[in-house]
């Protein structure tokens, strides 16, 4: 009996390890190619670690490519989208969680509907709408499009967090002398921090890695975000794998930092949302 349970534990851990290795291998490969000098890239293509590592690709990407511009653009777009969406989703999620109003059912249905389209279908119409407004080839345009796409899901996410907070708390606050909005701001919002962190993280990464709209709405390097910028390493005759991977590694940094900052709330947040949503 004991031997069996030890065996099961070991098998369990091994399975988890195998999964982690599988999930992280592409990231490892990204790093490996990024530090492989160009002359070894093809000759040592399948070795786990090159015989000579160098940071020359990083150096090139940071000093001689437009990468810093892409990086800045992505940071602006993703950050703004995350903030805008989270504010909107907090307010609308609260309304869905707490208020009864006419047309609520249809509103929710409509929001769900927006999540059912393949985005490719919408590229042309959105371009048609944004073009006369001067919002193509602009970061503002991207923020608007990303926000529009992310608000419905983020709203549902926030709603599930608000649902998890007992109504008694804000009723107590209202009897203590708060208006509903003050109760929301001083009592409910602080308790929803995990949910806000989860929503921020989710939207930030979604915007950070978005390629399709960025590619279609932005022309030229000035306003390009990072995923589009990566494509500039693909030229007509060759692909600069080393530089591309180096840029990719650099692009992981803000996402990692961001999650490092919010992970304390995130673990709490995602589970709370999962159970109570």
């Amino acid at each position, binding site marked *: 009996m004991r031997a069996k349970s030890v065996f099961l534990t070991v098998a369990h851990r091994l399975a988890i390890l195998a999964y982690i290795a599988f999930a992280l291998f592409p990231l490892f490969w990204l790093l490996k190619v990024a530090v492989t000098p160009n002359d070894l890239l093809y000759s040592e293509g399948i070795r786990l670690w090159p015989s000579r590592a160098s940071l020359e690709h990083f150096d090139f990407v940071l000093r001689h490519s437009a990468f810093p511009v892409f990086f800045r653009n992505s940071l602006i777009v993703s950050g703004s989208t995350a903030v805008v969406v989270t504010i909107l989703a907090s307010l609308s999620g609260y309304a869905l969680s707490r208020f009864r109003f006419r047309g609520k059912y249809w509103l929710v249905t409509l929001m769900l509907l927006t999540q059912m389209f393949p985005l490719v279908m919408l590229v042309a119409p959105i371009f048609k709408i944004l073009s006369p407004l001067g919002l193509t080839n602009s970061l503002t345009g991207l923020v608007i499009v990303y926000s529009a796409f992310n608000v419905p899901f983020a709203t549902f996410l926030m709603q599930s967090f608000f649902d998890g907070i007992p109504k*008694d708390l804000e009723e*107590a606050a209202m009897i*203590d002398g708060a208006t509903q909005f003050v109760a929301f701001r001083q009592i409910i919002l602080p308790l929803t921090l995990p949910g806000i962190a989860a929503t921020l993280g989710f939207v930030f990464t979604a915007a950070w890695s978005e390629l399709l709209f960025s590619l279609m709405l932005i022309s030229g390097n000035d306003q390009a975000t990072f995923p589009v910028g990566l494509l500039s390493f693909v030229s007509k005759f060759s692909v600069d794998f080393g530089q591309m991977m180096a840029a990719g590694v650099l692009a992981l940094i803000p996402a990692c930092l961001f999650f490092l900052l919010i992970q304390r709330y995130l673990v709490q947040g995602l589970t709370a949302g999962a159970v109570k949503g």
Partner: protein
Amino acid sequence: MASIDIANIQKSYGVHPVLHDVDLKIRDGEFVVLVGPSGCGKSTLLRMIAGLESVTGGEIRIAGKRVNELAPKDRDIAMVFQSYALYPHMSVARNMSYSLRLRKTPKERIATVVTGAAAKLGLEPLLERRPKALSGGQRQRVAMGRAIVRQPKAFLFDEPLSNLDARLREQMRAEIKKLHKDLGATSIYVTHDQIEAMTLADRIVAMNAGVVQQVGSPLDLYDRPANLFVAGFIGSPGMNFFEGTSRAGDRPLFEIAGDIGIPLDAPPPLANNAQATLGIRPEHIVLAGHGPETLLATVDLVEPTGFGIILHLSLGRAGFKVFTNDRSFLTASGTVPVHFPAHSLHFFDSEGNRV
């Protein structure tokens, strides 16, 4: 402190009425308990007074002022919730002072008031703790502290003790009573526990299915229940009921199923052959022979409670309970003589109303 007048209050959710024409005048400083089974509308009524539920019809006045349309924050009342509803991200002191801070009370005054309330409730050592580091009883005290720092016009309690274990409940019940004696504040207290209602109330309002059944002092409700519902709800173990027919004559009887006649010492306030329900509390039945027509009841079950004994007996098909302190009945079996004293009998007509 203030009086609260409730006039013809109605409440419906859509087409479903939950409160029918409730009328109630609560005097300044009075402790009123709303009691009834779950779903009887007592909590809804309390929440309407607090302003957490809208009023469908009728009028609520606090200190003579109509409050129907006022937001909860403008009614100057305090409420203690069943779930305590403490703010988890604030310390005990900040929980208690939240209402004062919202009103921009000067810091020194807040400190004095909070310390005073904490002393009254024995919370001084806990002031810097968060609610999650407190036991259930302590949380309950903080919730009460939050209510008393404000000196509101009235206190509302929504089943405040339901989440506590039996011993703690008893202790907190006494503390609430003591607090009310100290503060003399108008209080409305909702519970489904008739013991809480009996022990705390100046007046009890018994409710069922959205209708007030009886309003009176605890002993009024115990001694003279207005109908079958109140008779059955107040008292533990509950009142015994026998359905039957009254028979007048030289020796008046109340005839129950199986042609068993319960002899009545005095003529009942009923017409001859009237269908009715006879009620008697388990603690009022005498376990002794009385004259030639002694009734013999079969012993079905003996339940010792320590304090006394609950005997489950039956007369024909009718089962009933008797409470006695006489330990010789611990070993009772077969049959025992029972006597129903006339002054302890309650009669209810076929509608269930007291006769």
